């Protein structure tokens, strides 16, 4: 019965969402508040139905109900308990449920917050959000139904993709989708503004905080994805410029651009058209990303299975982009700027440059991602675009962005005076240059590394200098040190939240630099008792052990590790053999440290345990990336707090 009940729930939810979308629009056009009320009820009903369908699917997973096709393909009797719950979003159909569920939550939040405010806008926002939700429910009803009955019922399921049996997979999709779906809110506001023609500046301020929330979750999703890739995939990296990674990175870039340029609009009433475009692009790119991962048009390690779903998404992308940009064209004459740019030495132009670089980065990533398709369409040649292209093009762009990260927040609005420049930048520039020189003396010869170090120190100095001056002026007013610092952070939370996020990005940049520039690795075959040395570590192979786990067979190697003669640890990298997979899955063992990680991957081995091949990597400064993510989290939380400035 479960497949039928679940299917009925999704179908009814689709009907409710469609009705609600239309009712909100008609209600506001004809001035009937009762219809808008009814649309809100429909939104609530949709949420309840999706949540119930999700619980039903979880129940089917927990009880091994293999009459549900999705359960049979994504679990088997050996799948551990927690992964039977997370298997819910382990494949295409379930991920769409998760997506719809989150979108319905955002819709409810918008209703709760705005139903008695923003009277002109709100019904259209509701209508657009329910319309988008209806699309995802349509996908759940027609091309990718999670509740499909399977006959005959197999005795056991196929099992979850073993790579997804990891804690990173519990959190990564949740964070990522909270980010993706979160961008629906600013998009819905933008559409409401265009439809009503009330293109003031207020709505954009309203959407700013929603965008930060979505941006934060997307950042978190990207970082957890990197963490998963690092400790599960066993290649020692965290980012591969794979189409699906790019798909999540592009909206991050455009959203970052928007978060900066919106400040210029708030302050100077310019860039309205530009900001609207960024919102539309960001939302469009989240849908594009979903399309890429689910249509199978590009080859990627993460691709879900394909089907007619691609056509649905393509139709939706067409509708969104043509509709949104069509509205921009129709209303664009109202988007005229009320101010103008005064000088290129100003905060406005620093932010504009930042936007230019971020959008350029998004474009190059986009171009590299779809190039294989373009090449096949135009020249009929299959090519693949790899990391070298993306690194070559993006490294200079990101260095420039780091530089602007130091300039933007401190340079004066409108026109910077020589005094302003000297006061804010003299020390930081000196610090940056001194740091680069110091590292050169310490033996760092790599120009790229020196540039990056210098820039990071420069930006960090601007932040410290600003915070120091602000604290000092509070101290002069008689405040004590710690309360003064606390007040700065909470009362000017937008500014200092932003600074903390910048610090997080700097720490991440150092991690990326260090891991690319100084990691070393080696692969070797050892006899039992034999040892091997790399970067001061001595790794000795002590033997192999085999064990039968609930859903796989595991061969574990024992390696004793010493560092400069001192015993350090015993490490257990393993290989897992799943009956449903042709190739074994590596189980990485690693020792994390601030300076470097020791990372062991077991390769081939002799069945009698006399010999094993081991890949040893000493990955430098990777931990900084995760640490930077933590700092970024704190900064985002600070920036999201309600404004208490000038309270």
């Amino acid at each position, binding site marked *: 019965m479960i497949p039928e009940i679940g299917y009925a729930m999704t179908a009814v939810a689709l009907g409710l969402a469609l009705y609600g979308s239309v009712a909100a629009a008609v209600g506001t056009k004809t001035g009937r508040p009762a219809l808008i009320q009814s649309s809100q009820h429909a939104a609530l009903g949709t949420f309840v139905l999706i949540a119930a369908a999700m619980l039903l699917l979880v129940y089917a997973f927990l009880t091994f109900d293999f009459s549900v096709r999705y359960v049979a393909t994504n679990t088997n009797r050996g799948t551990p308990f927690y992964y039977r719950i997370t298997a819910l979003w382990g494949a295409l159909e379930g991920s769409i449920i998760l997506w719809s569920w989150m979108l319905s939550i955002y819709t409810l939040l918008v209703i709760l917050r705005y139903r008695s405010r923003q009277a002109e806008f709100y019904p259209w926002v509701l209508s657009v959000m329910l319309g988008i939700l209806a699309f995802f429910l349509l996908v759940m009803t027609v091309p990718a139904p999670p509740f499909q009955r399977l006959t005959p019922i197999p005795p056991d399921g196929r099992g979850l993709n073993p790579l997804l049996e990891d804690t990173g997979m519990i959190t990564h999709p949740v964070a990522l989708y909270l980010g993706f779906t979160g961008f629906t809110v600013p998009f819905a506001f933008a559409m409401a503004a265009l439809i009503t023609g009330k293109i003031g500046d207020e709505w954009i301020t309203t959407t700013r905080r929603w965008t930060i929330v979505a941006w934060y979750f997307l950042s978190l999703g990207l970082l957890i994805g990197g963490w998963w890739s690092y400790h599960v995939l066993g290649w020692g990296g965290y980012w591969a410029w794979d189409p699906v990674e790019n798909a999540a990175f592009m909206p991050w870039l455009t959203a970052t651009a928007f978060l900066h340029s919106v400040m210029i609009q708030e302050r100077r009433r310019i860039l309205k058209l530009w900001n609207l475009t960024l919102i539309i692009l960001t939302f469009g790119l989240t849908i594009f990303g979903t399309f890429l991962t689910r249509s199978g048009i590009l080859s990627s390690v993460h691709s879900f299975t394909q089907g007619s779903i691609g056509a649905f998404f393509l139709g939706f992308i067409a509708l969104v982009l043509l509709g949104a940009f069509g509205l921009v064209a129709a209303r664009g004459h109202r988007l005229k700027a009320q101010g103008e740019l005064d000088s290129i030495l100003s905060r406005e132009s620093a932010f504009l440059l930042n936007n230019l670089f971020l959008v350029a980065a998004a474009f190059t990533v986009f171009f590299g991602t779809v190039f294989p398709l373009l090449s096949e*369409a135009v020249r009929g040649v299959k090519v693949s675009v790899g990391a070298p292209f993306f690194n070559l093009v993006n490294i200079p762009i990101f260095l420039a962005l780091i530089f602007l990260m130091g300039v933007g927040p401190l340079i004066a609005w409108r026109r910077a005076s020589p005094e302003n420049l000297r006061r804010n930048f003299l020390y930081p520039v000196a610090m940056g240059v001194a740091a680069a020189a110091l590292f050169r003396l310490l033996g760092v010869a790599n120009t790229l590394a020196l540039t990056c170090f210098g820039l990071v120190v420069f930006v960090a100095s601007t932040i410290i200098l600003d915070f120091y001056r602000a604290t000092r002026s509070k101290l002069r007013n008689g405040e004590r040190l710690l309360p003064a610092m606390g007040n700065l952070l909470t009362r000017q939370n937008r500014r200092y939240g932003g600074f903390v996020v910048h610090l997080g990005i700097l720490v991440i940049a150092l991690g990326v630099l260090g891991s690319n520039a100084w990691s070393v690795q080696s692969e070797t075959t050892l006899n039992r008792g034999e040892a091997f040395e790399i970067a001061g570590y001595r790794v000795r192979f002590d033997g192999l052990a085999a064990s039968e786990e609930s859903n796989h067979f595991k061969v574990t190697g024992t390696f004793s590790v010493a560092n400069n003669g001192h015993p350090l640890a015993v490490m257990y990298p393993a290989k897992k053999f799943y009956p449903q997979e042709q190739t074994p899955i590596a189980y990485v063992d690693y020792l994390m440290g601030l300076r470097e990680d020791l990372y062991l991957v077991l390769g081939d081995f002799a069945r009698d345990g006399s010999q094993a091949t081991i890949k040893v990597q000493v990955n430098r400064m990777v931990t900084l990336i995760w640490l930077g993510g933590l700092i970024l989290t704190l900064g985002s939380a600070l920036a999201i707090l309600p404004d208490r400035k000038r309270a």
Partner: protein
Amino acid sequence: MNSQAVGAAPPAAESRLWRRGKWAIPLSVVPLLVLLAYGFRTDPRAIPSPLVGRPAAPFSVTLFDGGRLSLLDLRGKVVVLNFWASWCYPACYEEAPVLERGWRAYKERGVVVLGVDIQDTEEAARKFLKQFALSFPNGPDPTGKISVDYGVYGVPETFFIDKTGRIRKKHVGAVTEEVFTREVERLLRDGG
């Protein structure tokens, strides 16, 4: 310090420009949509097999119902060589009945369907054969040598071999009725 005005063109000129050019904004999306639609017609995983057009590597298997079968003995017949596994759900389950029907329909016309079961346990494989009542010759590849020789990347994969022993087509994923009939008819027509 140089001062630069952006967006400060005379309002009238700007709006005329806007009036003429505004629909270019939504229209600029169209080429992208066309490109993405084109993507449906291609399969990024369909990397052409270098084996197509080359002689099929000879091998012999011990069949599940006893006896041995060598590919060389099948010279002069059209061979449909199918790599499968009992854990390969759902694709292998979808194609098994198709292969069985194809075998029954064409065996009198000089077509042999040959199944090679890879990375599997014998018990599970036998259960699979029984479930679908497969009657065409089928054997395991315990050392994995055959699947390596044929560059099998995942299951199911099916090779269509002509009467002279050349691989003429590699099919990735479940074989459908249509693919089976089309390829087999083509190879039967070709004579060879």
